């Protein structure tokens, strides 16, 4: 089950942009910025962006919401690129509490949404911060006959 144990994102990704969020009123701008940065990326010929900007904008918003609600400030969001994929990585300063999959009727929607949208998800801590991340692979163009 995703998010149920620590895991690192693929190594060697490149930072595209990052943001620090002061509060929930910054989520809106974050969603718009994430989609904008992705729309401005050069895409390999074999791949397409497709719904990746919408999906990552939602995922970034959900992970940042969790950091604001359940973690400790500062809440930092970074967008990284790794070959044919993009990674959103959200850090907060609480290294003792971490994502826990929840399946109630009213709780636990955040991680479930991110899991449903992303191709790969995970979390880990280093000495200062906890990272929660999600990876989105750009789909390949269908092969034409």
């Amino acid at each position, binding site marked *: 089950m995703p998010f149920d144990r620590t895991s690192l994102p693929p190594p060697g990704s490149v930072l595209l942009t990052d943001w620090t969020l002061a509060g*929930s009123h910054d989520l809106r701008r974050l969603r718009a910025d994430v989609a904008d940065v992705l729309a401005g990326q050069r895409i390999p010929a074999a791949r397409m962006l497709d719904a990746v900007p919408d999906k990552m904008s939602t995922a970034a918003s959900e992970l940042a919401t969790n950091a604001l609600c359940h973690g400790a400030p500062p809440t930092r969001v970074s967008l990284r690129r790794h070959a044919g994929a993009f990674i959103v990585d959200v850090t907060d300063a609480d290294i003792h509490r971490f994502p826990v999959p929840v399946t109630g009727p*009213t709780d636990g*929607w*955040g991680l479930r*949404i991110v899991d449903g949208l992303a191709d790969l998800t995970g979390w880990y801590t280093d000495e200062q911060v906890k990272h929660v991340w999600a990876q989105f692979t750009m789909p390949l163009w269908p092969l034409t006959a």
Partner: protein
Amino acid sequence: MTIDDIWSCMVSRDGAVCTVALAGEIDMSVHEAVLAVLLLEIDASGTDAVRVDLAAVSFLGSAGLRVLVEAKQAAEARACTFVVTGAKGPVRQVLEISELLGLLTEDGPSTSL
């Protein structure tokens, strides 16, 4: 700084059926206000059914899902019908992923708009 339209709701009534048309981005910064509006309409005297129209909603996150589920539960507790309509694009996708489309809408999980 530009002026951003954050969210809006429009409440209308057709006999005992109340429609709440939401618009904009429904995230954790507005979910309490949206829930308050829905609960008050559900509790209103003379209301048998509440329809939430999401056609003009451009973002619905987990906080928005929670609002819809809590409103649904409150409605059921007082025998008021509660149904969500008009979800499309990313909003519909979030309802699908969370497997709430069948519970909250009339068209159910297999129908596509």
